[in-house]
């Protein structure tokens, strides 16, 4: 794959850098006093170079981007240093100067194209706006140029796209429009703020390819902000790792990845899921399935009689259809797929949250509808959700939350509930005195641990994990995954792990099934992931996500899949 060859190495550095941030510091004035947001940050980017700024949420990476563009909150204050754009200091520029410069010399691409595009304006107008403003074009000229710009980003029918509103396009199309707008005036610097995070794997991959191609064509300098270390190696030649507003490590990609010096960098690299670092328990020997889904389907939005009358073609939408899969005792089955592929739909059907057709079997018992699920089944099959912020009732203490399954399933005498709650907290490595706290007093990772403890409190035989690591930072993700495997080992429970993170699932799972548009398209043992017999869609997914290698493996950091 040509796109994986980095082309921005070894630029001559005789000329001045496009962006030169020198010992820059920034603070927010708050009621509690001044809090430092950026502390002595320095970085330089030359023409044609891509510099990755890596950090977890709250590290200050986006703050730096806003500081460079001088788009800052009213209580933000520069407390030292300089930000030079081709030698000109950005600090102290007036509003008119900034307006003339933004979009022309610095442009930006944002994380979520559906919120960064104006919902009530045609895409064409949003794109041509910069051409009219900065390149002095007339409306007609700008429209022609806009179509050409869209065509360059690989949009098939640019003229039609220009007339559309954002809600009429897919996420990938929208992000292409944003990118076309950013490149429209040939800026010196473009800041990419996690431009692929909100997109599906395959779309994200195409957007990355597009970025690499346009960078080569234009020679723009790019600051690429991301939390994804795996991605960095594919696009950047220089890396800065930012932590709590400070750059803790900076240098060439090879040096930072090959011989990380700062403990934080090492921690981040260690937390990257690598398929060959197997976390999974030994594969179960028993062949009788614990849980089976046979021809299970879930229908959404069955049309009402009036709609059917008016529109003969109206039909229900299938969230998932003809799904047949099984899980053996103690096994971890991975389900992967993009958003809308039906993977969560099946999880909800298996836990009685969605009505379903077909049959679900569990240890020899058969269930034909969700009404047949009795308390015993519900106790044996537990589910954990994606968002730690919404999976715990905010008005209940942690102790109250954890004692609920104990009382509901009568798992221990009333007098021992408190003691058991303490044990559960300790089991997920949380202090026992958390029992009296409320969810909002916990961090995201801690909340997710509580949700896990609640599921395991029921002493289940199958735990369904629906994207439970997706909303967490990399380092927390790894810890949660390890915890899950550890609990599985202790309890012997089987697990269905739903995720879009292919590297993670290859660490955890014994077998993997792949969902695409509501259908199960592939099922295989983890060891066979690289086999040429895989379904083309599976291969595409695997190819889209490079496998990070260990720091010791120097030469080519991101080896494409075989």
């Amino acid at each position, binding site marked *: 794959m040509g796109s994986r060859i980095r082309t921005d190495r070894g630029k001559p550095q005789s000329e001045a850098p496009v962006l030169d941030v020198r010992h820059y510091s920034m603070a927010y004035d708050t009621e509690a006093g001044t809090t430092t947001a950026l502390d002595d940050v320095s970085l330089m980017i030359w023409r044609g170079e891509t510099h990755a700024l890596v950090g977890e949420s709250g590290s200050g990476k986006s703050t730096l981007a806003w500081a460079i563009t001088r788009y800052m909150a009213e209580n933000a204050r520069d407390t030292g240093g300089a930000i030079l754009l081709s030698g000109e200091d950005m600090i102290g520029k007036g509003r008119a100067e900034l307006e003339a410069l933004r979009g022309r010399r610095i442009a930006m691409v944002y994380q979520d194209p559906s919120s960064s595009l104006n919902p009530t304006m045609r895409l064409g107008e949003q794109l041509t706006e910069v051409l009219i403003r900065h390149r002095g074009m007339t409306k007609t000229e700008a429209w022609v140029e806009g179509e050409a710009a869209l065509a360059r980003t690989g949009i098939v029918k640019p003229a039609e796209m220009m007339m559309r509103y954002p809600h009429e396009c897919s996420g990938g199309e929208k992000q292409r429009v944003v990118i076309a707008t950013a490149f429209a005036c040939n800026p010196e610097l473009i800041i990419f703020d996690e431009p692929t995070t909100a997109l599906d794997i395959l779309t994200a991959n195409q957007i990355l390819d597009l970025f690499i191609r346009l960078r080569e064509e234009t020679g723009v300098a790019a600051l690429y902000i991301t939390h994804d270390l795996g991605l960095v190696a594919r696009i950047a030649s220089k890396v800065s790792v930012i932590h709590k507003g400070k750059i803790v490590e900076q240098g060439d990609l090879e040096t930072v990845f090959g011989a990380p010096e700062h403990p934080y960098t090492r921690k981040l690299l260690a937390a990257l899921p690598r398929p060959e670092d197997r976390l999974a328990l030994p594969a179960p020997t028993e062949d009788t399935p614990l849980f089976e889904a046979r021809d299970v389907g879930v229908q959404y939005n069955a049309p009402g009689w009036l709609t059917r009358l008016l529109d003969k073609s109206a039909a229900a939408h299938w969230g998932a259809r003809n799904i047949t899969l099984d899980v053996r005792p103690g096994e971890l089955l991975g389900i992967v797929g993009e958003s809308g592929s039906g993977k969560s739909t099946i999880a*909800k059907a298996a*836990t*009685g*949250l969605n009505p379903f057709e077909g049959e679900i079997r569990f240890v020899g018992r058969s269930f034909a509808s969700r009404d047949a*699920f*009795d*308390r015993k089944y*519900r*106790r044996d099959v*537990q*589910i954990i*959700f*994606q*968002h730690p912020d*919404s*999976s*715990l*009732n*905010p*008005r*209940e203490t942690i102790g109250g939350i954890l004692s*609920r*399954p104990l009382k*509901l399933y009568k798992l221990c005498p009333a007098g021992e509930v408190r003691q058991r709650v303490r044990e559960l907290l300790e089991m997920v490595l949380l202090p026992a005195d958390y029992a009296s706290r409320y969810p909002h007093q916990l961090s995201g990772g801690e909340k997710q641990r509580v*949700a896990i403890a*609640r599921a395991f409190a*029921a002493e289940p035989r199958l735990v369904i994990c629906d994207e439970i690591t997706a909303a967490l930072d990399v380092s927390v993700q790894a810890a949660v995954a390890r915890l899950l495997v550890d609990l599985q080992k202790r309890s012997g429970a089987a697990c269905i792990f739903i995720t879009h993170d292919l590297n993670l699932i290859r660490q955890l799972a014994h077998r993997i099934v792949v969902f695409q548009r509501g259908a199960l398209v592939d099922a295989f043992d983890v060891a066979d992931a690289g086999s040429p017999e895989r379904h083309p869609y599976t291969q595409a997914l695997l190819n889209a996500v490079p496998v990070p290698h260990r720091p010791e493996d120097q030469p080519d950091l991101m080896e494409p899949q075989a």
Partner: protein
Amino acid sequence: MRKILKSPTGIIGVILLTIVLFATVFGPWIAPYDPQAFDARARLQGPSMAHWLGTDQYGRDLLSRILSGAPSTVAFGLGATILGVGVGSVIGVIAGVAGGRTDSIIMRILDGMLAMPELLFTLLIVTFLGGGTTQAMLAVAVTFTPGMARIARSAVLSVRTREYVLAAQARGESRAWIVGREVLPNALGPIIVEATIRVSFAIMIGATLGFLGLGAQPPSTEWGLMVAEARQFMFRNPWCVAVPGLAIAITALGFNLFGDALRDAFDPKRGH
């Protein structure tokens, strides 16, 4: 509470409400004169040392009348709101929890009721129930019911799809437990906020009904009625319409500001 006192509007709201509630509880005790005592020599006077807020057409002390009218005015607002919010919330929660056909039938009927301007609806009901404070209160409560039901329903719906509710469902909790322990405590915020703001509307509508002669009857010291009675004399002594008018405004303003501050405090987007 601390969050409410952080915004200037919240502080003003709390101050006004404190004054109003103080007058409501102690008003009749601290009134300097008998609110019904005629004084032929001191008719339609402006503020003076003897009568701080002046006197009305019969020489009755306005301050005393305002103070003695406070309990009935505020009680009217609170009573009508509690009734309307109570019934409306029950309907709304039932619609939100039941979903499906029950929900759509209830909502259609509510839409029809909401399609009539509020005051018109109240007037119709009051006319057919007959004038008087209790009837007026009932009428306002009935008028509030559909709007409150809507708000309660949407509060329930927004909570119902949260993951902790799904988790309880998946666990096999009973419906009563899910509604009582997981849904309601979390849906209460918006309902309380709306109720607070509605108290001010109830007071205003109650006063309007009194003004139109359909609510409290003379010689009551209900504030709306006071304005109506003094209207003939408004050019000779503007104080006798201005004082009860402003009393209504202050009370309504207090509940309004407090309700808005409460909303901001509940709204996680604006809080810290």
